[in-house]
């Protein structure tokens, strides 16, 4: 084989002018056909309802006479004026529960990622398995655990811990149920797996050799954690806190089952306005305020933590 058998570009005869070819239209439409049904579903049953909700919040009227859009912005002020304690309480409970989830969940996620060895799958299963028992049943179980005559309350009483917490306003008298402590305990419990799983995912990605490298470069274990492990797990921390805080702030189940009327959260208000009082404009205004508050907080939080590629 010699080079002459393969003619060099300019020598070859180009008889026809090059014709432009285009991708067929059908092929270019494929992604849109794939998207169409699902996106339509979300637009009709997720986005449109939010718009509808917005208009409802500006309506006045009653169930009998029907509701009309009257741009009655006062609904918002009235709702805020009447229910701001529940709002503040919701954010407070959710914030504390989120912090507790992080505090409790981090060691467990760390344990699964780095220390569990061949037990990793078993521990992982134990974290996920409770999911499969209806969370309402599990939340009701806390009623038993924290029951007035139960061993937990008994122990806390004999150690005089409840006296301290009562003084702080977290509990009342010698009981735990129907106090803020019970509600926060329930919230923490319910959303803990949502913290652990993203934490584990980002911890698992960390090359264990980085720990050795940090140790090699004179970092003590605590420093290694502070300077290497924790920063690298930030995506998990951010995702976990969001996945915990958002549902916790809108939750009404724990307050309903474990709390009393003094622990009602904003979710309880929306639920009762909507399903019992049938005051739809107020319910709509409240859920809009909640949504706006959460979206604003989430946006600021994501900006601050610098993990915008999370989405």
């Amino acid at each position, binding site marked *: 084989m010699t080079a002459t058998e393969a003619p060099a570009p300019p020598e070859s005869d180009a008889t026809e002018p090059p014709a432009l070819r285009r991708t067929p239209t059908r092929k270019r439409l494929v992604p849109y056909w794939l998207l169409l049904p699902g996106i339509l*579903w*979300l637009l009709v*049953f997720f986005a449109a309802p939010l718009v509808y909700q917005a208009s409802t919040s500006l309506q006045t009227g009653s169930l009998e006479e029907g509701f009309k859009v009257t741009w009655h912005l006062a609904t918002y002020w009235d709702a805020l004026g009447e229910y701001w304690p529940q709002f503040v309480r919701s954010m407070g409970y959710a914030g504390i529960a989120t912090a507790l989830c992080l505090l409790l969940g981090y060691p467990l996620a760390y344990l699964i990622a780095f220390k569990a060895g061949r037990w990793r799958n078993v521990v992982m299963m134990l974290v996920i398995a409770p999911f499969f028992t209806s969370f309402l049943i599990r939340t009701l179980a806390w009623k*038993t655990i924290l029951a007035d005559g139960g061993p937990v309350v008994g122990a806390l009483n004999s150690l005089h811990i409840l006296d301290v917490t009562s003084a702080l306003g977290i509990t009342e008298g010698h009981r735990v149920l129907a106090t803020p402590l019970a509600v926060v305990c329930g919230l923490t419990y319910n959303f803990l797996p949502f913290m652990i799983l993203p934490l584990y995912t980002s911890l698992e990605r960390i090359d264990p050799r980085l720990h050795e490298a940090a140790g090699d470069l004179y970092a003590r274990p605590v420093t290694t954690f502070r300077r290497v492990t924790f920063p690298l797990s930030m995506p998990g921390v951010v995702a976990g806190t969001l996945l915990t805080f958002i549902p916790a702030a*809108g939750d009404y*189940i724990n307050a309903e089952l474990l709390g009393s009327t003094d622990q009602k959260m904003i*979710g309880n208000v929306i639920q009762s306005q909507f399903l019992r009082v049938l005051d739809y404009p107020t319910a709509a205004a409240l859920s809009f305020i909640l949504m706006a508050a959460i979206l604003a907080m989430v946006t600021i939080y994501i900006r601050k933590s610098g993990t915008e590629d999370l989405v």
Partner: protein
Amino acid sequence: MAATETTGKTTGKTAGTTPRATAAPLRWLRRNVVILAGLATLAYLILPNVVVMVFSFNKPHGRFNYQWQQFSTDAWTDPCGVADLCGSLGLSLQIAVWATVGATVLGTMIAFALARYRFRARAGVNTLIFLPMAMPEVVMAASLATLFLNMGIQFGFWTILIAHIMFCLSFVVTAVKARVMSMDPRLEQAAQDLYASPVQTFLRVTLPIAAPGIASGALLSFALSFDDFIITNFNAGSTVTFPMFVWGSAQRGTPVQINVIGTAMFLVAVLCVLAGQMAGTRRKRSKK
């Protein structure tokens, strides 16, 4: 880590007397503090399940099953002995199956479009997928119910199903998209190069490789739908799913059978996970 251990050993050899000995438990505690804390959290997570299980053998006096009275297997021998309980369970399973099918099909299609094609409005689609996951359930629930109310649609099985597909969709998209994105596009090209038509390529290569992502999306959908309370609460009308039954019983009186079903679900799930684990370890090396 290794360095501290070796230094610990050598000092122990040279001066392994009283002061070191008293420090030993403390040092052990310090080294294992993470493990201890993790296990404590694990106990916190598992405790309610244990309580549910134990109380499934209770024979309560009165309507509420919150206090231990005496051992009994009555509830286990007659799990459907409470009116409407098994009916609501069946309904929940039915809804969960259909919601899973619907969300998985629609979500997988979206995921493929996002992972495999370039098109306009991509950012918009991504936002629309993300928002339902970043929205408190009450808000979505109340909005959708408002829509149904205003359209005069009868609440019931279909409204619940619609709502469940809606909120499961995003989770499926996320799970499948991650899997498809991590897949080497050259595999599909290789299949085409080896005489597989586009349909064959999809069935023989793309789908098998994307299957774990689709499966985890479907599993998540099923769990979310089956266990959903808040959205169902707003959109069910008088229809009673299993979580709604439990909710109602918290007011009216909790039958032991609830614990039986909760425990059974837990055990079935554990068995499924174990079986999956075993199949997984066998196939472990074939997965990347």
